[in-house]
């Protein structure tokens, strides 16, 4: 029953700390909403191409490309000035049958868009030219030969797009969301539980507690229970918010999502408690964030792990976020089942068991039994 008393006490303290509550429950939603907005904006960046001596048809074709606008300039100098003044994002000049393009290249996504548009349009132009030549050749051929030509369908094939996950409007954010969800749970539980235990250490309540017949494990389990509960609420909030407000789709079972995040929260909790052992003040606890928390997000699959060097992949293997992000992505985007993510769950469980045992042992510092 002592476990439950500790759980209740930790929860009570948390609920009375309005600032921490906001940090746990509101901050992730705000950040997610912001990120969702930022990534959706990034997808619709527009480029303006300044042209010099380019034919009317080519200008028209370029204009037809989505997010591309064309502005014609009478001289090269004028176009260059416009580029310098950021009125256009790139220039295109036709000289002696060759095209010369200059890109501002301050925004790589814009450069890429302009480049692609130019290539497509120029290819099309070339094709048109070939077709013209072909037609001319054809006309010169005897009529009989022309009749033997198989009838080609006049209608160009239409592409029907089908999306396994989300829709045509899915953004990079959709891919990021499962990882971010896990990361927020990890980050906030790590920080807040670490701080909570640190303050028990520095205020002396932990030492005081260990002069009662409480088991060392009761203290750790009490913390796990309370923060597990907090993680459930936090995850529910994040999931409900991303699904209803940010229109992100969860393909798999919500229960599995909760299971993963609870396990991840327990890893974060035990890691937070473990880390707090090495901190003497709250500031020192903050100093652990770049070492322990930030790498988790780099190796969580935002950047594909397969493309990384061997040592980086090994590093990722010992970071709990990798397994959680993997499982969350699988469940949310690919409707993975329990058995499909069992390996990841097992990895998280191992982290929890090892760290928890370490934490219980670590309390021997204050009491040898």
């Amino acid at each position, binding site marked *: 029953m002592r476990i439950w008393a500790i759980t209740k006490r930790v929860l009570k303290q948390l609920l009375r700390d309005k600032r921490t509550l906001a940090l746990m429950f509101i901050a992730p939603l705000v950040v997610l909403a912001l990120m969702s907005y930022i990534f959706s904006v990034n997808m619709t960046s527009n480029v303006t191409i300044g042209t010099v001596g380019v034919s009317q048809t080519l200008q028209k074709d370029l204009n037809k490309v989505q997010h591309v606008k064309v502005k014609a300039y009478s001289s090269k100098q004028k176009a260059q000035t416009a580029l310098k003044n950021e009125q256009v994002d790139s220039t295109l000049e036709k000289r002696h049958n060759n095209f010369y393009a200059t890109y501002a290249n301050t925004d790589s996504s814009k450069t890429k868009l302009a480049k692609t548009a130019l290539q497509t349009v120029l290819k099309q132009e070339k094709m048109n030219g070939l077709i013209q030549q072909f037609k001319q050749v054809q006309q010169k051929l005897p009529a009989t030969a022309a009749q033997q030509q198989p009838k080609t369908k006049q209608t160009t094939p239409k592409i029907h797009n089908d999306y396994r996950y989300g829709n045509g409007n899915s953004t990079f954010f959709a891919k990021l969301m499962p990882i971010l969800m896990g990361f927020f749970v990890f980050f906030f539980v790590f920080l807040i539980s670490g701080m909570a235990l640190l303050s028990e250490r520095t205020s002396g309540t932990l*030492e005081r507690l260990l002069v*009662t017949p409480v088991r060392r494990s009761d203290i750790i389990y009490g913390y796990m229970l309370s923060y597990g509960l907090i993680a459930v609420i936090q995850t529910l909030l994040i999931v409900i918010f991303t699904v209803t407000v940010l229109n992100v789709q969860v393909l798999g079972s919500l229960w599995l999502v909760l299971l993963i995040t609870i396990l991840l929260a327990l890893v974060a909790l035990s890691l937070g408690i473990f880390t707090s052992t090495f901190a003497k003040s709250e500031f020192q606890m903050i100093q652990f964030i770049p070492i322990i928390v930030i790498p988790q997000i780099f190796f969580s699959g935002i950047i594909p792990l397969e493309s990384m060097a061997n040592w980086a992949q090994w590093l990722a293997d010992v970071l709990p976020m990798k397994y959680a992000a993997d499982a969350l992505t699988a469940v949310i985007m690919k409707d993975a089942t329990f058995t499909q993510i069992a390996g990841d769950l097992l990895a998280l469980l191992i982290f929890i068991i090892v760290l928890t045992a370490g934490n219980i042992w670590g309390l021997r510092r204050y009491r040898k039994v």
Partner: protein
Amino acid sequence: MAKRIVQLQHVHKKFGTHTVLEDVSFNLDQGEIVGLIGPSGAGKSTIIKVTLGMEKADGGQITVFGEQMPQRQLLKKIGYMAQNDALYDSLTAYENLEFFAQMKGVSAKEIPAQIDHAAKIVDLKNQIKQRVGSYSGGMRRRLSLAIALLGNPPLIVLDEPTVGIDPALRRQIWHELSRLRDDGHAILVTTHVMDEAELTDRVALLLDGKLIANDKPKILEKQYQVANIEEVFLKAEGDLA
């Protein structure tokens, strides 16, 4: 003969190379108040910590209730008040008391009565629903003392219990300690306030980790031919130098 509750024999303790306790031997029996007296840094808190098993002694024998510490189950019979007030600021005084009562294993049925009793002794009944964060230093000290008294433990260990408590209440607390002693509790109190020594049954004078005297206040005063413990202390210190 009264039952022996605490026994320290030739206890040594070092922090690094710094010797904090040197060959300390002393006892505490049922039904007595022993005052552990000495200037700050003398090693009073360290004696308490090795006694309760929070620190490991480097040499010597320590038994509590006849058993070697540390022993988790023995902690049930010990009420401890630390030198620093280890309290949860965001909880009310009542919630602090309730939590520590639960930790001590006081049964749920008994908890309200126990809290009521302890709060009455330290005169915090009217402020018991207040959050501890709003408490003054003296109030925090009293709450810590109330926590130590929960569960009616046969051994009570108090590390500087009366610091920051005003004289009227201090007298009341000592009165209560005497009453507990008469009930058969064993009480170990540290203090650096010499005149409190007169209220104990026995004083152990500690200087630089060495026990320099250990007897009834009256006997010590007679032995050193002085009027009070403070002078005993000064004289003992002078003899040593």
